[in-house]
């Protein structure tokens, strides 16, 4: 993910992070170099006393690598350069944490630990200058919160991307139009129905009705979890279009939840023949087609 320079500037402005803070942080460089290793060692001791830490760093080599990266991170805080490279680097760290599956609370816990440990050490180093300590800590807080914001963004961005990909995968599911018997088409619908998918489905179905000379179409929506006004309208349109071409549509597989939703939403499916499950739908279609095939002109009552 990318964060534009304007956005970074905006975030810094919101945190009231300015040149004075840069100055305060630069003054910490010497101390930071002194403290980096002990603070990080302390944190990993802390982390490894929890199951999440032990689980994560079973691999000692990985632990060493991560520690070294942390030292670099730590020293970056006081370089005085918080431009695009800095932001990029923070985003990359966040992305790595997200990829290795480090929980967000562990990530936040780390920032918390560093801030506490560093402020303690600052008070010890500058006992006689409490005001200087205060301003330094405030500047550090601003910068660390900028970091946290960036890190969280990478987490959220990654998750959102995953969701988008999955949504696309679901809506890209092909909807086959199957000929079950002569004159009978079956369309099993699975997943989300959005406008483009509904359109594609309808066009495909209409062509299939003509090509197969279908007289009955069974739309099975067992695999559709959620039906709202839009989805219902899509289905109604598909059915109306099929009917214009002389095919009857039977909808099967309305779950109790879907049926309830439709009623609550006030969607009228009065003109649509709905049945409980696919078997009933096929039975009904067969019965209908049985009459279709009977051209002898002899009236025959349905079996049921």
């Amino acid at each position, binding site marked *: 993910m990318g964060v534009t320079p304007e956005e970074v500037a905006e975030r810094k402005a919101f945190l009231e992070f300015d040149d004075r803070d840069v100055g305060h942080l630069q003054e910490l460089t010497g101390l930071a170099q002194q403290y980096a290793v002990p603070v990080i060692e302390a944190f990993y001791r802390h982390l490894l006393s929890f199951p999440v830490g032990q689980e994560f760093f079973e691999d000692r080599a990985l632990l060493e690598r991560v520690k070294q990266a942390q030292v670099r991170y730590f020293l970056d805080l006081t370089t005085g350069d918080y431009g695009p490279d800095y932001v990029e680097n923070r985003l990359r760290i966040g992305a790595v944490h997200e990829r290795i599956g480090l929980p967000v609370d562990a990530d936040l816990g780390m920032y918390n630990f560093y801030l506490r440990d560093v402020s303690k050490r600052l008070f010890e180093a500058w006992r006689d200058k409490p005001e200087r300590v205060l301003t330094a800590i405030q500047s550090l807080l601003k910068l660390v919160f900028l970091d946290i914001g960036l890190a969280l963004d990478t987490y959220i961005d990654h998750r959102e991307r995953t969701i988008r990909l999955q949504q696309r995968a679901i809506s890209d599911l092909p909807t086959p139009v199957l000929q079950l018997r002569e004159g009978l088409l079956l369309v099993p619908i699975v997943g989300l129905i959005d406008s483009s998918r509904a359109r594609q489905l309808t*066009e495909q179905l209409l062509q299939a*009705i003509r090509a197969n*000379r279908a*007289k009955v179409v069974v739309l099975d929506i067992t695999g559709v979890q959620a039906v709202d006004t839009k989805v219902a309208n899509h289905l109604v349109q598909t059915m109306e*279009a099929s*009917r*214009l071409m*002389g095919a009857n549509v039977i909808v099967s597989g309305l779950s109790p939840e879907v049926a309830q939703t439709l009623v609550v939403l006030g969607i009228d499916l009065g003109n649509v023949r709905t049945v409980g499950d696919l078997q009933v739908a096929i039975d009904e279609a067969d019965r209908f087609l049985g009459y*279709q095939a009977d051209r002898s002109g002899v009236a025959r009552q349905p079996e049921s």
Partner: protein
Amino acid sequence: MAVPILRQGPYLIATVMAAIEDHDWQRLGADLVSLTGGDRAKGVLLDVTNLDVLDSFAARTLATIAQTIRLRGAMTVLVGIQPEVAFAMVQLGLAGRLAGIATALDLVDGMATLDRSVHGAWRHG
């Protein structure tokens, strides 16, 4: 352009060969309605296979024709609506206007529908 109306047994067959004007639709309706009574036709097949558009006026007129013909004691079956036309009509919200008219894929199916209806063998839908 007048639409020719053929007679086939107890049925009348009107095939709309190309896009026609609004007044031609009305004339077709009038012709069919009068023939239904005069020839004692039991059914009317309206074939629109060759049309690539059915607009709102056509849809309304078709609905009116079918209703009137029913009052004259015959049944109308609309046959040959193409996939693209059906899709467009649904998109434009015109499908509801034709809700009361029987439809069939083509003349053969339409004839079968009329046969069933005339013989009273099928009472579904």
